[in-house]
Each structure stands twice: as structure tokens, then as C-alpha cells.
């Protein structure tokens, strides 16, 4: 099967907020229409839609949102598919669309995602997020999603012999760095800088993770239009190619015991993406990785190849993850400062990297000069990882 090159040709992104006055469908339609207009096409040019929405059934009482979206924006009767992979949902939807376009099934697809997590109160949100762990072998004991990463955090401290206090200092610096850039992102849910003192003074959620070690519940949507290379070149002079993709799944946390605190699925997934794109971690100019919790950034950075195992906290300590550093990470503010509307997050990461590679973030004061290669990293629950490599020619 001969595979064509596939590019992102335009995107849309609502502000990520608390308590949006709009429904999930409306947010999805807003982001989608912006992506369509920014791609110099109209809704009737879209041949199929991939849509990420994880908890719409709970937040809006709305299942099957993808079909209503197609209709609302005038993509009448096109095939529309909903994806669910917990927090990795949006990126799964992008990877799937990239494969369909590469294989020649479609020439132009819309990929969009939305979540209205703040429509649920904390108790219900905690319960629904706990559905991303094993309902038989984890939930009965009271697993919550933060608890998964909290246990990984203590395990990381013990396994690599890093005193917990030192690790927490490094984690606080992850949060500070996220918010430093989120403050420059007009779409970010939280646009205020933090200090390590503020992070370490916050309320405890689940030991050792405090409030600002955790990403918030968020409402928002994002969308991109994907096209084959020849179609892309007719519509934009700045196509951003999806040069590599990878995806892997896992069993529940305890079943990964031979690898923890490393997440084996990520190592498998990113290797696929790097190989397909013909690059290594040293070639990455900008990375949007899955910082659902500050410790998650540290664990992710190592598996993505940016630091030796057990040392990634030093990347943040030394300022290596800032613009001008060795590996700029989450210059959007990441999940913690920008927000984390589950179904939208992966697409938001693709949108962000696309903007960086097109050099369009100078006005916001967060452009990485000369960025040509970007990496997207998205994790769902205690198991699904998706990685994408994006490149400008």
C-alpha cells in the first residue's frame, strides 16, 4: 500500500475555561468552523469527521455528538466517528485520520474534540475520571486518577533514590514553568504565573500531589483539518506534515510491575513515531507532552528520550525546558495551565505545535525560533499513549 504524505492545513481552538456557557456541541462546532475557515475550505469539502469526546454522556447527557456536529456545521451525512481513549482521545482521532488520508481513503478530514468537565462537580468528575482505571481490580479499593500518578510519584522517588522533598521541588518547578507560558497564552484557562512556594503551599489532593501539581477540570474544544499533500499544497503555503505516528495500550497499573515507574506503552509508541519520521529525540525542537500531573512531565520526558531515566527533573531545574533551552516543553502552558478538556487536549497539542512550526506565536511572546520538528505526546488513564511527529519542509 503506497502511503501519501499528510498535512495539517488549519486549526481552531476555543478558549479553555471553567463553566463555559455553551454546550459541548456548540464548543465543538465553533472550533471546527474556525479550522475549516482557516484551511480555506468550506464544510462541504470535508469528507469524514473524527471526533473526540470522552464524557459527553455525563456532562451534557449527549452521546453520539459526532453525528450532531456533522449536521450542525453543514457536513451533511458525512461519516462521523467518535473516539474514546480517556485523555489520549484527541490524538487517537488525529492518528486515525492521518492513516485514512495517507492510505487514500479520504483527501480531507476534520478532526475535532471537546470536553465540558466542569459541568460535573468535583465528586462526579472524580468518579468519572476514576473510570480510566480498572473497574474490577482498581476502582473498588478507591482508585482515583490522581492516585495513580501519586503512587507513581512515590515509586519514582523510591526507585531512583531521590529524596521526596527534592523531587517535590523539581515537580513544583514543572508547574511554575507551565504557568509561566500559560500566562502568555490567551486560550489558557489559567493565565497567572506561580512560584514554587505557592505550589508547595497548596492543599493536598492525594499524597504527595498538591493542587498545583494537578491539571484542572476544563471546558473547551479544538479542531484541525488534515489533507493529503497535493490537496494541502493547493490550500496553504504552510502545510505541517504528520511525519510519524505511534500508539500503544497497557493493562492496569499493577500489571505493569516489571516496568514501573517507566510507562512501557510510551516507549513503544514514541519509538514507532520517531522511526516513521526518521528522527530521534535530539531532533525535536518543540514538545507538547502530557503533564496531567507535574510528576507525569518528568516521567514522560525520560521515556521520550530527553533525559536519562531518573534525571528528567533536572531539565526543569536547569531551565532546559524553556524557550532557548535544550528541549522547549509545553510552551502552551500544557495541561496544567492551559487546561485539560479530555477529548480536545490531543488536538490542542497538535494545534499548538502547528502554530510553532508555522512561526505564528511571536505576538504572544512564546515562539521557539526556527522550530521545524515537533513532538506530541498524549496519555490516557493508566494505559493508552499516542505520539505524533510534526514537521515543516
Amino acid at each position, binding site marked *: 500500500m503506497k502511503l501519501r504524505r499528510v498535512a495539517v492545513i488549519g486549526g481552531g481552538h476555543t478558549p479553555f475555561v471553567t463553566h463555559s456557557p455553551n454546550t459541548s456541541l456548540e464548543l465543538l462546532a465553533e472550533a471546527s468552523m474556525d479550522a475549516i475557515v482557516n484551511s480555506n475550505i468550506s464544510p462541504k469539502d470535508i469528507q469524514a469527521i473524527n471526533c473526540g469526546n470522552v464524557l459527553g454522556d455525563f456532562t451534557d447527557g449527549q452521546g453520539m455528538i459526532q453525528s450532531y456536529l456533522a449536521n450542525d456545521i453543514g457536513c451533511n451525512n458525512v461519516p462521523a466517528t467518535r473516539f474514546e481513549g480517556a485523555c489520549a482521545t484527541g490524538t487517537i482521532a488525529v492518528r486515525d485520520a492521518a492513516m485514512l488520508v495517507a492510505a487514500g481513503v479520504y483527501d480531507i478530514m476534520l478532526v475535532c474534540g471537546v470536553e465540558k468537565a466542569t459541568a460535573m462537580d468535583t465528586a462526579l468528575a472524580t*468518579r468519572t475520571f476514576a473510570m480510566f482505571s480498572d473497574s474490577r481490580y482498581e476502582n473498588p479499593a*478507591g482508585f482515583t486518577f490522581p*492516585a495513580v500518578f501519586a503512587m507513581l510519584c512515590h515509586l519514582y522517588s523510591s526507585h531512583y533514590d531521590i529524596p521526596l522533598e527534592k523531587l517535590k521541588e523539581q515537580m513544583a518547578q514543572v508547574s511554575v514553568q507551565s504557568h509561566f507560558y500559560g500566562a502568555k497564552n490567551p486560550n489558557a484557562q489559567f493565565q497567572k504565573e506561580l512560584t514554587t512556594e505557592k505550589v508547595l503551599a497548596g492543599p493536598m489532593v492525594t499524597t504527595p500531589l498538591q493542587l498545583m501539581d494537578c491539571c484542572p477540570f476544563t471546558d473547551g474544544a479544538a479542531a484541525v483539518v488534515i489533507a493529503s499533500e497535493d490537496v494541502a499544497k493547493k490550500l496553504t503555503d504552510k502545510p505541517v506534515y504528520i511525519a510519524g505516528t505511534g500508539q500503544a495500550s497497557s493493562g492496569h497499573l499493577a500489571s505493569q*510491575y516489571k516496568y514501573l515507574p517507566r510507562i512501557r506503552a510510551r516507549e513503544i509508541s514514541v519509538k514507532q513515531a520517531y522511526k516513521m519520521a526518521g528522527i530521534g529525540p535530539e531532533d525535536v525542537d518543540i514538545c507538547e507532552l502530557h503533564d496531567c500531573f507535574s510528576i507525569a512531565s518528568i516521567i514522560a520526558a525520560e521515556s521520550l528520550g530527553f533525559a536519562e531515566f531518573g534525571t528528567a527533573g533536572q531539565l526543569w531545574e536547569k531551565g532546559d525546558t524553556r524557550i532557548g533551552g535544550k528541549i522547549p516543553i509545553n510552551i502552551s502552558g500544557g495541561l496544567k495551565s492551559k487546561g485539560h478538556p479530555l477529548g480536545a487536549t490531543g488536538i490542542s497539542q497538535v494545534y499548538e505545535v502547528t502554530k510553532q512550526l508555522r512561526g505564528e506565536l511571536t505576538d504572544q511572546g512564546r515562539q521557539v525560533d526556527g522550530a521545524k520538528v515537533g513532538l506530541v505526546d498524549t496519555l490516557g488513564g493508566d494505559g493508552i499513549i499516542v505520539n505524533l511527529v510534526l514537521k515543516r519542509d
Partner: protein
Amino acid sequence: MKYKIDFRTYSNALKKNQLLGLKCSSCGCITCPPKMVCQECASTEQEIIELSGQGKITTFTTTYVASLGREAEVPYTLVMVALDEGPWISGNLIDMDPAKITMDVIGRRVTMGHKVFHGDLYSSDEAAYPVFSFS
């Protein structure tokens, strides 16, 4: 093809403090909690065994923010335990004030008991789960 040990069987055994797992006839690996196939080699040739429930704590967390309907339980401590037979399982650590639990518990030996979660709006049946106390 049916599970050798389905969840209902596992849970009912756990209510009698029996920890069931699978021993692989192909590679000898022990899978606990049980799955459809061997954890290591994916063989379906499995023998039902009972594990000792003894092991040591590898990690923990004390939770303060509860899931819907479980507000009365917080704070509670989750642990992962490396069983003497090899696999890790998760459960609660009891016998100690959750607020006082520190990194010092990592490496301590524990013995398994059980508790029952009576289900909620999003889970149909009740489910037994392991609880651990210091040996």
C-alpha cells in the same frame, strides 16, 4: 472461550480471604489478578492457584479527595504490594492512621485481608478488594 477465573469467582474467593491467580502451564508465570491468558506469554493453558497474600509494599498514596458517594471514606491509603510469588496487586493499607503514612512504609511486609465495595450508580455488582496490614 470463557475465563478460567472470572471476576465474580475472584471476588467471591476474596471474600473468604482467598487470593486466586493463574499459573501458566507453558511458561510457569503467575498472573494475579487473573486475566483471560498468561501475563507473560499469552497462553490459555492456565492452572488455578491460590496465592499466599503475603508481600511487601512498593508504593502508596493517601487520598483526600473522594469519588462521588465515597466521601465518608477519606482519607484512605492505597498501596501496591509486590506479592512473594511475583505479581503486584493493589488495595488499601489499614491498621495505621492514613495521615501518618510516609515513605517509610515502602518495603514493609504485609498480609492480605479483604473489604467489600457495595457498588454505586456506575457499577452493577459488589466487588471485594484486598486490604493489607503489617505482618
